[in-house]
């Protein structure tokens, strides 16, 4: 019998620490049984020969292999220097107290494991257990940085530190979506999700190691060009012009988008990815705000038209730079408040996390778009015909909006008013499951990572969606309302990967699309199910 893998095993010399065999992934119901025989094929050796790929069968970062033993040793030293900095207030005042508390008080009761969708769906693979990576970091910290650690490690849990262990830990930090369900259920209040976040920070802030999608093409591009999509201000304005025309063509409603209006009540911040991937979402916001007579504006300044802040997932420094930029744009526009569009991580980043970063006149009030929309929809100024949304609707709760901010009911009150066939997923609200695309996963696709995401981290959400629509005829169109760009991206990929549009007629979109679709003023529907309009006049 082989010894079960434990945290010390991360340093073992083996080609691959974890492989998911066919049939080990959690079972999918009909008509998706064929996917129960699908598993992630190992990366082809020629693709992985120059990168660190010994954790499992996927790669999120693609760390180049060190050229020599000396380079390996230098990287180990750098890792330890970074680990030390996580526990210094000069370097990590942002999370020092939460980190210390979670490092020192875990009882290893494993209650967190049952809450983790990645661990559960993977067939309970040890490396995906929320406490596995946390325990690796705890053991390294105690052994290599605490006085007398090498001796104490014999009692409190030993671990060897080598480059293999470090490279695996870096990759492993990108197998958790930071949904923090594990932290929500911990009886002590320990947050293994936070420890994962801190591991990512160590690698980025000290060693410059992070997935290119969230660093090079993410925060760096955001700060340099203006958006993680690569759109500069001119391109953003062009996109919006196109969206205005599209919206009039689709709905028959003419909408004007205000840019850079000084003194407007609201600066609306969208995830710029919406402009390219889901233009109808941005257009729907414009229609609602215009119809409600709201004083609002978009910003055409670099970064001002892209609400994302990928720093939230991996790097406090990059996070701070983006957050300050957003706040400064709002300050100079002299708006009364910033309203966040349908982007979950942008919600948490600017409203909650940046709250203890922004001071003085940079501390502009921030509000969730869910709340602003609730006031409009329930305020009575707009007229709705809920029969236009006469199709099954379920709501996906973005972790960052719900579990991290406690914004649970506004979106539901809207749906109850405009979507007569709305039903909840189980569980929902603050105990929701992540879409599987959280913490950057939705935009990470290098190597075969997107396949791992569809098969493992998004699997629980797929099961939940199918369960929510159980009993509905397969041929009836069904709408998954996901008021978050990254979640929408992940759900789009689930639907595509599992052929769920063809097999179950699953469609997805945001909340504002449903609102506009039910507005009595619209001459034509905004929502279509393939070629089929959701209603006819």
């Amino acid at each position, binding site marked *: 019998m082989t010894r079960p893998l434990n945290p010390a095993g991360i340093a073992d010399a083996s080609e691959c620490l974890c492989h998911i065999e066919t049939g080990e992934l959690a079972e999918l119901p009909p008509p998706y049984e064929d996917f129960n025989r699908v598993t992630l094929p190992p990366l082809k050796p020629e693709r992985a020969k120059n990168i660190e790929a010994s954790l499992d069968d996927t790669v999120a970062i693609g760390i180049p292999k060190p050229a020599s033993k000396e380079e390996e040793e230098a990287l180990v030293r750098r890792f330890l220097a970074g680990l030390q900095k996580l526990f210094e207030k000069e370097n990590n005042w942002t999370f020092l107290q*939460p980190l210390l508390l979670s490092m020192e008080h875990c009882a290893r009761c494993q209650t967190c494991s049952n809450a983790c969708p990645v661990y559960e769906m993977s067939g309970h693979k040890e490396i995906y257990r929320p406490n596995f990576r946390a325990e690796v970091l705890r053991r390294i910290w105690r052994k290599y940085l605490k006085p007398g650690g090498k001796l104490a490690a014999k009692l409190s849990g030993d671990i060897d530190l080598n480059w293999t262990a470090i490279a695996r830990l870096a990759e492993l930090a990108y197998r958790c979506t930071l949904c923090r369900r594990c932290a929500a259920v911990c009886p002590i209040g320990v947050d293994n999700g*936070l420890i994962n976040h801190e591991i990512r920070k160590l690698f980025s802030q000290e060693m410059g190691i992070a997935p290119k999608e969230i660093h090079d093409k993410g925060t760096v591009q955001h700060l340099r060009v203006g958006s993680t999509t690569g759109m500069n201000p001119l391109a953003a304005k062009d996109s919006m012009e196109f969206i205005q025309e599209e919206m009039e063509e689709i709905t028959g409603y003419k909408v004007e988008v205000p840019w850079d209006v000084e003194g407007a009540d609201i600066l609306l911040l969208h995830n710029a990815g919406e402009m390219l991937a889901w233009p109808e979402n941005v257009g729907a916001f414009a229609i609602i705000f215009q119809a409600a007579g709201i004083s609002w504006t978009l910003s055409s300044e670099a970064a001002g038209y892209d609400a994302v802040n990928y720093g939230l997932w991996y790097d406090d420094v990059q996070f701070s*730079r983006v957050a300050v930029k957003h706040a400064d744009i709002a300050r100079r526009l002299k708006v009364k408040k910033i309203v966040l569009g349908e982007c979950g991580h942008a919600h948490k980043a600017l409203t909650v996390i940046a709250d203890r970063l922004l001071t003085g006149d940079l501390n502009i009030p921030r509000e969730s778009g869910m*709340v602003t929309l*609730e006031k409009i929809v329930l305020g009575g100024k707009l007229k709705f015909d809920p029969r236009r949304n006469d199709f099954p609707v379920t709501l996906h709760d973005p972790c960052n909006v719900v579990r991290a901010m406690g914004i649970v009911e506004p979106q539901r009150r809207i749906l109850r008013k405009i979507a007569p066939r709305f039903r909840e997923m189980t569980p929902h609200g603050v105990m929701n499951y992540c879409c599987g695309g959280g913490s950057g996963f939705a935009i990470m696709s290098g190597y075969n990572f997107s396949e791992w995401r569809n098969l493992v981290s998004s699997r629980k959400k797929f099961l939940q969606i199918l369960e929510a629509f159980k009993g509905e005829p397969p041929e009836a169109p069904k709408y998954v309302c996901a008021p978050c760009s990254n979640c929408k991206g992940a759900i789009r990929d689930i639907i595509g990967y599992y052929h769920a549009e063809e097999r179950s007629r699953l469609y997805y979109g945001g909340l504002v699309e449903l609102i506009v679709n039910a507005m009595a003023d619209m001459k034509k529907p905004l929502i279509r199910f393939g070629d089929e309009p959701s209603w006819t006049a």
Partner: protein
Amino acid sequence: MGFYLLSYLCIAAFVIATGYRIYRQMTLPVHVRWEIYPVQTETAAKAAYGGSYLEEIDWWEKKRGRSLLNEVRYMVPEILFIRGLWKENRGLWWVSFPFHFGLYLMIATFVLLVIHAAFTLWGAAGFGEGSSPRILLDGLIALMGWIGLILGTIGSLGLLHRRLTDPELRNYATPADYFNLILILLFFLSALVACLSGDPLLGGAKAYTLGLLTGGNPPVPYLPGQSAPGILAIVSASLLAAYIPLTHMSHMFMKYFLYHDVKWDDAPNRRGGRIEAAVRKNLALRPTWGAKHVEADGQKTWGDIASSAPKEVK
């Protein structure tokens, strides 16, 4: 006197270690918010589904609804009955609850023993032999002591069994985990055996506590260590008091910070307020992170870096 000396040293270690842990928490810099909902300091209506003040339009113009009652209603069953574990990990609760409740009852028993000794020593009015308050206190000490010892013994045996037999727990267990459980079991078991061997009303514990308050010279002479189980109980209890705050078992009281300073810390930063002042102080700190894109040189502050764009990509 050696036993009393050991107990005094251990109590001092407990006070110093606990005090240090708490002091350190209270002097750490204000961190960014990282709450998880439901936040039980919210109003009961919001906490029931995990809602927050951020659900309100223009929330910053409104008074934040807080509820101490709701917090207490949540915390009491959480602390006493470990409700979270009951909900999320029922199998473990059956052994964890008696273990923890046994420990709580031991702490309560010790408090009662101290009260008993103080009344005896300083002659509280109406606390003479056969008086009702004394009978009541004697009864409570015996009741809590017995229940606590029985539950604690069952709980620590159960936890030890789980750690040894459940692959999920065993795979992560360290020698220190087993040592901790064995030390606690040793205390419960030895105290239980001491009571069973002719001391059902915890007379030995009363006398020893009296000795603790009098520097080892109680008016009623008591020589600790009249029985082997008695010795073990005194030594293991003393060592535990010193040892717990040095280990992860300090979650017993550090849970307060885990919840109030992190999980439920949703206090907004208001202009000109206490949090803003603390944040300004933090922004003046000088990081030394080594990645090029951070551009930390030991001179630039967090404020400088946050308001600059990186020149380097990596």
